[in-house]
């Protein structure tokens, strides 16, 4: 789908991309990097809008340096920033954008109606976009990227500014773009956690260099860690410590990172979930101790943690096959099941 070969982009002061070589296969691929890691530069080059200093790339078999126009006809792009004029309706705007992609007027109208329906905009599509919520705006932005039925869409931070529910909906929509529409997706984010639920593959870049490219399953394998928070009771004034001791006794490895002084993590216990039975063990141990389980969730990965695991080495071999197979959704479901009154799954960062 995309082949990038020792791609280098230097600006007068900074090197945005440094001999980046990576292949991207059909499916949903996440492109992760901190701000300034070179994600946007890469997208610009892939759209044929910015010449590479060295190296090259092909998108859908077309060369980015020579066939930019042909690439842009077959690729959709959703920018990170706001890009919607407030005084026109979503329908008018998307029709116009479809025509800009070369669709004849009637086809543009039909495709617009279809696409807006698919992204979940109904009656409101006739209203001026100035009055839309952030979630609706993101949907229109996605629709304009899909309206000409591209082979590939490049989505730049599509979940930016969305609340947790909107974020989940957007991620589900992105997943559907591939499964239902048959369009490959390259989606950027600085949150690895949200990409691992959506993507088949994840590419991590930092400082313009490739840090890591692997399938999402490999990522979950490397950090099968559970964050557990419990209440204190009269019998166990320090519930966290009591649970830790009991879990270690049960043969699990558990640490309280709060001891190391991380703010806000005082009552969190990190448990290495080497296989699925670890979830049961934690649950049973908590019940035995008579503690209240505030939350139990698969630790959400932040980009920084990938950097830690990579520099810390070895950690990636910790898990076995069974843990890798555990779907990412399971801990969240546990969470909801056990503690409906707390709404503990809300901390989506």
């Amino acid at each position, binding site marked *: 789908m995309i082949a990038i070969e020792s791609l280098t982009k230097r600006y007068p002061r900074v090197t945005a991309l440094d001999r980046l070589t990576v292949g991207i296969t059909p499916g949903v691929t996440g492109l992760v990097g901190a701000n300034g890691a070179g994600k*946007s530069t890469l*997208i*610009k080059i892939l*759209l044929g*809008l*910015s010449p590479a200093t060295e190296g090259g790339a092909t998108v859908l078999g077309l060369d980015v340096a020579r066939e930019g*126009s*042909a690439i*842009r*006809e077959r*690729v*959709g*792009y959703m*920018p990170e*920033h*706001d*890009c*919607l*004029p*407030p*005084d*026109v309706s979503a329908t*008018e705007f998307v029709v*116009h*954008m479809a*025509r*800009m*992609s*070369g*669709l*004849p007027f009637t*086809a543009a109208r039909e*495709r617009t109606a*279809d696409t807006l329906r*698919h992204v979940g905009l109904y009656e409101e599509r006739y209203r*001026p976009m100035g009055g839309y919520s952030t979630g609706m705006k993101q949907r229109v932005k996605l629709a*304009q990227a899909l309206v*000409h*039925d591209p082979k590939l869409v490049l989505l730049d931070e599509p979940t930016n500014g969305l609340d947790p529910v909107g974020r*989940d*909906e957007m*991620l*589900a929509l992105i*997943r*559907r773009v591939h*499964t*239902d*529409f*048959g369009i490959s997706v390259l989606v950027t984010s600085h949150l690895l956690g949200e990409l691992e*639920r959506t993507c088949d593959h994840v590419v991590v870049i930092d400082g313009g260099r490739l840090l890591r490219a692997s399938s999402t399953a490999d990522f979950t394998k490397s950090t099968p860690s559970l964050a557990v928070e419990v209440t204190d009771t009269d019998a166990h004034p320090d519930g966290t410590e009591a649970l830790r001791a009991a879990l270690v006794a049960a043969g699990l490895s558990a640490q309280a990172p709060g001891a190391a002084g991380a703010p806000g993590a005082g009552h969190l216990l990190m448990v290495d979930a080497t296989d699925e039975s670890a979830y049961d063990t934690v649950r049973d141990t908590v019940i035995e101790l008579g503690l209240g389980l505030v939350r139990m969730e698969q630790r959400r990965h932040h980009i920084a943690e990938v950097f830690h695991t990579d520099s810390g080495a070895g950690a990636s071999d910790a898990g076995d096959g069974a843990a890798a197979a555990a779907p990412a*959704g399971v801990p969240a479901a546990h969470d909801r099941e056990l503690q409906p009154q707390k709404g503990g799954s809300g901390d989506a960062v």
Partner: protein
Amino acid sequence: MPSEPHAGTPVATAGKPPGQRGEDVIHNIGYRNYEGARLGRRYARTSLFQQSLRGAYGLGRSAKSKVLPMILFAVMCVPAAIVVAVTVFTKAKEMPVGYNEYVIIMQPVIGVFIAAMAPQAVSLDLRFRVVPLYFSRPIERSDYVGAKYAALAAAIFVFTATSALILYVGALLAKLDFGDETKGFALGLVCCLVFSVLHAGIALAVAAATPRRGFGVAAIIAVLTIPYMLVNALQAIVASQDNDPAVGWLGLASPGSLVDGLQSKFLDGKHSFPGGPPDLTGAQASAYALLTVLLIAGTYALLLRRYRKAGL
């Protein structure tokens, strides 16, 4: 996970024989691929031109945005209609106002129209950052700039040529000489064209410099009127000193007087420079023509440069 919310819909009817489907089940026909024509760059450029031209008159936009262009359009045409009425009723032998002259006289109105429309053509795209969406599509920078330039020039041309057309129809109604009037009208259209292209370039170059529409409007009015008034004042002073060639040279300094001088020399008109008839000399005439071409090419180049950085 709230994924694939529609995935279950077809199941609702799956167990029933055909013809006995559930009454209120919405059938999701799913995603359809587009197999039709993709018309490419040229078509996209033409579409952008059409959209921008219509947009200049508020067509395809909110009712509010139609008000100003339509009022100005009326203001531009009504005096022409009055001129026609006077000519017809007084049975005059010729029009009190020539085709070229009318455009020059009505410059303030045209100026307001340009100042209102040029920022709407480019500033909104910049301000709301729609430009990257254009450049993520097959069109190139030159297509975008070219389409916007052509659209504004066409909008100004329609604005000015319509009144020329009213004058022409009126002249024929008044049974003035057909040959003379047709020639005058044709030259008048050329004058409108030069005026439109020149002013569109200047206005767009100014408007594209700022994403703020208000600044754009003010800046364009300033660029079009202040030099023009200065030139007029200076010409009047110089003319009172009997320094004829200087009047012509001064006319180069504003877009309005530039077109005025051009049309007087090349399009068979009379310029309205203070001090009256003495025509431009040959050297002056070529300076006028050269400067006009330079301004048109220069503003276009400036626009291309402006959008080099604006993509994504």
